[in-house]
């Protein structure tokens, strides 16, 4: 193949490889979670009951919807519907902001109750509980950073669509950014039951 033409297959392959590294990054947290869950099932159960199911479930729906918009935006740009693509991308970014806002409410409520890393309440409590909340903050914090990065990437992509740099013929960048966004969603699909629902 000539070196000049754009290789969208290669670009997607590279993106998937990058997504694997993200999976394994969160996988590292998952290793710790699974080990400590087997060691402290009771404390994890008690900790999980202190998390707000309404916040968690709402955020799940918000993220799934954002993922739908992202997936639809790929269909839209391939069919040449520029305005629709921009609308759907805005929808995704909007969902990301809602997600972060809910996360903010949730974290502040926890902080208010004296539950934050290294807080006197957690140090005084049973060992497993401190571990549970440390993992909770670690996972959701790391995930939140990815939501922020994903939102920024989405905005950048929207600008490129607006300028016509990304169009019905050349849109692999949009595809790759949505792939990243779906990964953020995938991680949450596991975080939600493991922290909010289990035990």
């Amino acid at each position, binding site marked *: 193949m000539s070196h000049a033409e754009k290789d969208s297959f290669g670009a997607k392959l590279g993106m998937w490889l990058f997504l694997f590294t993200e999976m394994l990054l969160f*996988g590292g947290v998952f290793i710790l979670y699974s*080990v400590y869950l*087997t060691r402290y099932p009771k404390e994890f159960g008690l900790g999980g009951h202190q998390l707000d199911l309404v916040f968690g479930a709402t955020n799940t729906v918000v993220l799934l919807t954002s*993922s*739908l918009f992202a997936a*639809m935006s*790929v269909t839209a740009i391939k069919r040449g519907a520029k305005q629709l693509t921009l609308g759907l991308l805005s929808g995704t970014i909007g969902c990301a902001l809602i997600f972060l806002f809910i996360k903010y409410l949730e974290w502040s409520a926890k902080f208010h109750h004296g539950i934050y890393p290294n807080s006197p309440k957690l140090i005084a409590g049973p060992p497993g509980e401190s571990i549970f909340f440390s993992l909770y903050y670690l996972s959701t914090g790391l995930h939140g950073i990815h939501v922020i990065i994903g939102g920024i990437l989405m905005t950048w992509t929207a600008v490129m669509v607006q300028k016509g740099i990304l169009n019905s013929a050349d849109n692999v960048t949009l*595809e790759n950014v949505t792939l990243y966004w779906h990964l953020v969603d995938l991680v949450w699909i596991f975080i939600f039951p493991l922290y909010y*629902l*289990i035990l």
Partner: protein
Amino acid sequence: MEHTEHILSYGKLTAVWVALLVLTAATIMVTRFELGVWKVWAALAIASVKSGLVIAFFMHMKYEPRLFRIILFVALFTLAGFIGGTFFDVLYR
């Protein structure tokens, strides 16, 4: 090597989204029962189905060449190996 591009319809994507919402509701319901350890496995199983749907449709994996599925399997297998190896220590200490 090259393949014709497959464009997913809005209807199909919406159907996947509905399925994902239903499965989310199902996880919440299942974990309300007293299942003990099985709760973890039930929740993980449903989460795996959900992520399977996201990967297959939202992420187009179903329509990508086989290479992509092979390397995805390699990555997941590696992660499973890391977790499994750790448990040889943790479970039998």
